[in-house]
């Protein structure tokens, strides 16, 4: 790569394109047992978003009940069911399927120049497990849903709503199985199907993150399955693995449960880390800062994530030395996570930032995740955790990680890759409205919860001490803003998908391989095996696929203005838009 920056002509697309015909997906393809990773990816994204809306509605039930100290909106039983199913949906049917299934499926083969995933049929099966399981879980309301919290600790889970609990156990086992299938598929795809000239150390960082995530899915999920099978036996046939009346030990369940469910937090955040590492350099026009540190820190987090589970059990009578071990191991995770955060800030620093919706959500991710990370180190400290365990401080902390982190990451990813997925641009103005409303709603909802928890409000309660009423009302109002914030996105996504301005192959001038094919990419992605011309983040090093006029034009389009016809057709005569116009 020579470093002289030659003057670029606006007439020529400098991106190498390894495909020529964009895909023509019909809507019914998305309801079929397709083995195309891109179709499956979008199936995951849309399905999980539908469940997100349902889980969000349940969250509003919870928040509305908590608007006042008395039990006055739903009964206590319904309340417990609502928060149990809310958490189960958000974890198992929204964040995990959306991040690993949705973005993982759509992006991994494209990023490594592969035609598809390693096991396309397994991929489709993994997806098709999800919709019926989700429906089953929702149908459990007929008999009374699982109401023992998403943690489902025995003995409580053994004596409340047995049918609902049994469905919950079955559902989570099935969703876990789907997750294991996906994890295996990603691992093999990333390790075996990269284009020949892409060594591990030049993979896009999202692939590193997915590698670390898949390892966790494969190692940790089977333990949860085991725990739930045993819990199911206790529930249905009266064994006593965890039931103290028969000599079982309920704490053993907690160990097995958290052996999966702490790594699950990393399954839910590592892919988002990976996406942020992809999005920031593109919109900052600057290479990622410290590629290797970010790549290897994903692996470090993945490994450490496996040996910290008992920090959820500091008040469960865990022996002292174990508490100390898990405290120190947990705190050490702050180091690789800190490396990532500092590297992202350094990536932005001195860049030429395009503050579009994707970039705003990506920076919002760093900002919000930071708060969740800092409170995470605090709750790792045993003496402090003993005070805040099972309080609203934890509720605040986990939502800063999983909403401020994962969900902001998902939105950043949608704004960034929507043009590639659908061949259409999202409206930027509505995107910014969405960001502002989400940012405000989220912080108003969850920031006061830190105070509530410290002051003494325990979690999972339908009624509370009237002295907490004001802050709870604030949280509830915030949650309504958060609910409303989804509307501009929803309308924007649906409308743009159907009527939005056509996207070019590389609207953001990215350097990773997914931008080197058509939007949307054809079946099998590339007509010829793509050749790597640059590394994934070599911005400002001489290779510039930048068309001077084009950037302005994309912004025009995104704002809903139709660019002048002559410019459009002059841009790239051989490309998709001129053919479809």
């Amino acid at each position, binding site marked *: 790569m020579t470093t002289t920056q030659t003057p670029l002509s606006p007439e020529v697309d400098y991106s190498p394109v390894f495909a020529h015909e964009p895909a023509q997906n019909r809507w019914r393809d998305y309801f079929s047992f397709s083995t195309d990773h891109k179709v499956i990816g979008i199936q995951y994204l849309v399905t999980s978003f539908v469940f997100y809306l349902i889980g969000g509605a349940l969250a509003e039930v919870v928040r509305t009940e908590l608007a006042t100290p008395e039990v006055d909106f739903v009964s206590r039983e319904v309340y417990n069911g609502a928060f149990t199913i809310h958490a189960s949906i958000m974890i198992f049917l929204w964040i995990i399927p959306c991040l690993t299934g949705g973005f993982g499926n759509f992006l991994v083969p494209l990023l490594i120049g592969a035609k598809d995933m390693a096991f396309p049929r397994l991929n489709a099966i993994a997806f098709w497990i999800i919709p019926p399981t989700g429906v089953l879980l929702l149908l459990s309301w007929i008999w009374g849903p699982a109401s023992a919290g998403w943690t489902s600790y025995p003995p409580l889970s053994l004596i409340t709503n047995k049918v609902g609990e049994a469905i919950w156990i079955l559902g989570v086992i099935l969703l876990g199985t789907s997750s294991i299938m996906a994890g295996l598929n990603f691992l093999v795809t990333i390790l075996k199907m990269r284009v020949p000239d892409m060594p591990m150390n030049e993979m896009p960082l999202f692939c590193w993150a997915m590698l670390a995530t898949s390892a966790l899915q494969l190692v940790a999920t089977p333990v949860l399955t085991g725990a739930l099978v045993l819990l199911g036996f206790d529930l249905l046939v009266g064994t006593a693995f965890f039931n103290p*009346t028969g000599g079982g030990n309920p*704490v053993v369940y907690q160990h097995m449960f958290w052996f999966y469910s702490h790594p699950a937090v990393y399954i839910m955040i590592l892919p988002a880390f990976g996406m942020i590492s992809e999005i920031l350099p593109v919109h900052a026009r600057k290479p990622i800062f410290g590629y290797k540190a970010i790549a290897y820190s994903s692996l470090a987090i993945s490994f450490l994530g496996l040996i910290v589970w008992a920090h959820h059990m500091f008040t469960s009578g865990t022996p002292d030395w174990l508490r100390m071990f898990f405290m120190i191991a947990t705190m050490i995770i702050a180091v690789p996570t800190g*490396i990532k955060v500092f590297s992202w800030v350094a990536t932005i620093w001195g860049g030429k930032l395009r503050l579009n919706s994707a970039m705003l959500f990506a920076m919002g991710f760093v900002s919000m995740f930071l708060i969740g990370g800092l409170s995470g*180190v605090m709750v790792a400290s*045993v003496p402090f955790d003993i005070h805040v365990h099972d309080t609203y401080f934890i509720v605040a902390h986990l939502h800063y990680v999983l909403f401020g982190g994962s969900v902001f990451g998902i939105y950043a990813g949608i704004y960034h890759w929507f043009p590639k997925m659908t061949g259409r641009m999202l409206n930027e103005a509505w995107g910014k409205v969405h960001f502002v409303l989400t940012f405000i709603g989220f912080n108003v909802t969850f920031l006061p919860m830190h105070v509530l928890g*410290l002051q003494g409000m325990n979690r999972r309660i339908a009624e509370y001490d009237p002295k907490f009423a004001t802050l709870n009302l604030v949280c509830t109002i915030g949650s309504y803003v958060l609910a409303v914030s989804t509307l501009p996105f929803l309308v924007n996504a649906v409308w743009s998908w159907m009527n939005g301005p056509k996207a070019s192959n590389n609207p953001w001038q990215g350097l990773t391989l997914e931008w080197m094919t058509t939007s949307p990419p054809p079946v099998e992605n590339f007509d010829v095996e793509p050749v790597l011309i640059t590394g994934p983040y070599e911005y400002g090093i001489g290779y510039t696929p930048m068309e001077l006029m084009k950037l302005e034009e994309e912004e025009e389009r995104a704002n809903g203005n139709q660019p002048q016809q002559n410019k459009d057709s002059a841009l790239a005569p051989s490309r998709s838009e001129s053919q479809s116009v």
Partner: protein
Amino acid sequence: VKQVPATIATLLIGILITLISLWYSQNNGLMPTSASAESPEIDGLFTAMLAIASGLFLLIQGALVYSAIAFRRKKEDNTDADPIEGDIPLEILWTAIPAALVLWLAVYSFDVYKSVDSGAFMGTHMAHNHTTEQIAHLPGAAIAAPLPGSSALATSSVLAVETTPAGSIPSDQAEAMEPAGVGPAPDSLPLMAPTPSAEGPLAVNVAGLQYAWIFTYPETGVVSGELHLPVNREVKLTLSANDVIHAFWVPQFRLKQDAIPGQPTYMSFMPTVTGNYPVVCAELCGAYHGAMKARAIVQTPEEFNAWMKSNQVAATPDAAAIATLTAPSQRTSSERLVAHAQGLGVAPAIAAGSEHAGHLHPSQLQAIAEHL
């Protein structure tokens, strides 16, 4: 501003961030009243963590906001930024500093934990042996709360010996005994602090059930729905659960411990300020989880003794009823009874009384005793 060299500007910003973080953490006002000998140490730890977190928050959030303003793309500029791919010394720095910080925090937390958990910490091993033993010979492990009778007395004396090893008065206890005038005025101390070591810790058995707390004082046999405690005397709680997992939490004491069916757990602390505090169940235990509340009433020793005396008389009939159930000759059958009751789940009689858990009537206690 342009005249100020970058190093001086950085230094000034660093000092400013440090000052704001320290000021905020010292004046955070986020914690509730502190009412135990353990809580000031935990609050100190919180303050330190809050200072560090605030500093990092301001630093990183500041950098993000500054970038969003200062590094916006100029309207006509379509070129890329400078290709800076990394900086090894900088990366080492932001790996080493957090590593050092968390190691320091781990050591600090360990120290606080050791002193908060003073009685039990070194004796973990012994306590666990004892646990097994206790499960072995108490009627129905699930109601580990030793009922008034010979076994209870034995238990309490074992506990007393265990938690006060000769010559090792916990540091916080020693501190509390120091006369006023040394260090910040201990305004929390009442006029006459009794010498804790002389009396030994007060043993209380705490039983959690859907949806109430039952407090039993094994030394006197008093059973209560309120936790009465004398100020400035070490308390040792033995927690058990009858049905599902509960968690005993008094926010003002900063301490929480799960009560787990089938395995007793322990908790020791020393209340230092008289008053009424909520006892909150912090582990989801069913529909009325939010209503499972009791009161912890910290009193002067005189008030406490008076309360104990008045209840001792009242409690006698109950104690007798319970004693017949747990008499050695009937132990096997009562064990069976307990297991049976457990299998049935919650006693409806108990659940009915849950809304007024703080004021359990003797007749309710009688019902509980009969239930067992």
